[in-house]
């Protein structure tokens, strides 16, 4: 059987015709699916926008058959800033916006300063965030951690735990590759311990165990407990990601560096780590996105993170009703944050490949 090779379609329209309207069955199916999709989109638009109520004193005042966004609108400051004093809301607002700064620095600076400046910006972000939230310095009134909450708390915890786990994870990754069995064994044990425990368990244990290690009478606050627990948990995952990156760098790179006169740590800083981080970047973003979502477990220690505070608001008698809008809102915010994170990483990958 001798058939001619398939001819490439002349243009996009022709490609579409072949793909979706090749025969009567295909045409009917295409039209039916289009109608279904159109109907679903219309229903969603109608419920979410056209028939939705944007402002109302309570759920009873919301129009039936449409989304009750009034609930989200009325509680928005609390969802974002928790119980933070309303006249100081600019401070948690700054915390929510601050993670954008390293991204801008990375994109804006010329190539030769980029890596160092973005690295410094990433490492400095959590301390600045903590200072802005906690205050206690001239010009910034102190605000106790009990009043922190909402999206700003979620972002603060996720950022602090991720950045704090970076050096810990790097140390673990190197320790696990060490030739001394004691060192590599301890690192492997540490990683397996925290990776093998469910996060909820770690948080529960932190609440019970942490006070035992502290002087009698002092209680660690919930925020610190949550950040410590998440840092330990995350560092185990991050360590394995970084170890994978380190293993991907050919041994000949270290040998060439040594022959030039680089000592071990200099070679790591200038030659091995930059290559390892490039390889590890997609997996690093994976870990960061997972951590951002895992942050919601801090409800266990009694903190009101973004999800916790929205869920709590649902039990307000004035807004009792189906939680659809609340969870759609949560989903949209989380998705936006995670998508921004992956877009930032994609931008870095593009710049590195150039």
């Amino acid at each position, binding site marked *: 059987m001798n058939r001619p090779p398939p001819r490439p379609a002349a243009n996009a329209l022709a490609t579409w015709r072949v793909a979706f309207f090749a025969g009567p069955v295909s045409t009917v199916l295409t039209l039916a699916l289009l109608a279904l999709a159109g109907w679903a989109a219309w229903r969603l638009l109608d419920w979410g926008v056209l028939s939705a109520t944007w402002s109302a004193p309570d759920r009873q005042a919301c129009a039936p058959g449409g989304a009750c966004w009034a609930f989200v609108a009325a509680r928005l400051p609390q969802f974002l800033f928790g119980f933070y004093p309303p006249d100081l809301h600019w401070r948690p607002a700054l915390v929510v916006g601050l993670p954008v700064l390293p991204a801008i620095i990375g994109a804006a600076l010329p190539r030769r300063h980029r890596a160092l400046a973005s690295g410094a910006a990433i490492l400095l972000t959590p301390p600045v965030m903590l200072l802005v939230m906690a205050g206690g310095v001239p010009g910034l009134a102190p605000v106790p951690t009990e009043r922190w909450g909402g999206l700003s708390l979620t972002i603060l915890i996720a950022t602090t735990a991720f950045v704090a786990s970076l050096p810990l994870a790097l140390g673990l990754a190197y320790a696990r590759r060490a030739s001394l069995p004691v060192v590599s064994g301890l690192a492997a044990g540490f990683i397996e311990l925290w990776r093998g425990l469910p996060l909820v368990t770690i948080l529960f244990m932190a609440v019970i165990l942490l006070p035992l290690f502290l002087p009698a009478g002092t209680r660690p606050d919930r925020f610190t407990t949550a950040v410590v627990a998440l840092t330990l948990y995350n560092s185990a995952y991050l360590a394995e990601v970084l170890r994978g990156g380190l293993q991907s760098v*050919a041994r*000949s*790179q270290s040998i060439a560096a*040594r*022959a*030039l*006169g*680089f000592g071990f740590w*200099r070679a790591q800083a200038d030659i091995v780590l930059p*290559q390892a981080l490039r390889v590890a970047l997609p997996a690093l973003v994976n870990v960061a996105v997972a951590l951002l979502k895992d942050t919601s477990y801090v409800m266990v220690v009694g903190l009101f993170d973004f999800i916790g505070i929205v869920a709590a608001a649902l039990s307000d008698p004035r807004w009792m009703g189906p939680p659809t809008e609340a969870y759609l809102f949560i989903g949209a915010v989380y998705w936006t944050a995670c998508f921004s994170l992956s877009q930032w990483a994609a931008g870095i990958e593009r710049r590195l490949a150039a």
Partner: protein
Amino acid sequence: MTPPPAIEVRGLSKSYAGRTVLHDISMTAAAGSCTVLCGASGSGKSTLLRCLNGLEHWDAGTVRVAGLDIAALRTRPQRIGRAIGMVFQDFALFPHLSVLDNVALAPRRLLRIGRDEAEAAALGWLRRVGLGELTSRMPRALSGGQQQRVAIARALAMNPSVLLFDEPTSALDPEMVGEVLAVMRDLAGSGITIVTATHEMGFARACADQVVLLAAGRVCACCGPEAFFDGREAPEVAMFLSRVLRSGRQTAS
């Protein structure tokens, strides 16, 4: 009084996992000379070269290169790196750095030379190997011959008095061997001491001051190129030459 030799190896022995890799090697090389190491693969050429700049441990013997006691300085790679450069079979360029940064990195970091000065010097070295135009390229965008020439410039940028080549042309396509050998010929006789493991007998005949034949970790012959290519130095030399020359790997030099 003659100046001390640039390379002095006495009774160097090394075994690995019960197998003798180097056996009682002794050799010297005068400052500014060019030594060609040859021998079948596995004869110990690479290991000997790696002992010369302390990349390998050994069991017995002393190695003095460029006035340095290599065994004593193994923990201080920076001292060795200043005096001895090395070029590898697989180039081992740093893939995340541009050609210019590959050459300028070590002087900046290890000799603490300022960025502008180091880059100007790097450009000079790249011109010397004929690559002054490609400074902003990334290594992966270069041909094998070009990458190896960058690797040579990278080694030269530390201003070493001794330069070691570990089969610098073995990983290259035949048409690129010539450009790398041309750079090496330019360096031989320029005052820098060269030791190269290679199968390029044309290069050995034209540039070597001495040729060392290794077999199973022992020195079988160590003599000038005329005596070597006569084949009368040792029976192993004649056998080696007949194998190498028949294989047609001779490259015009």
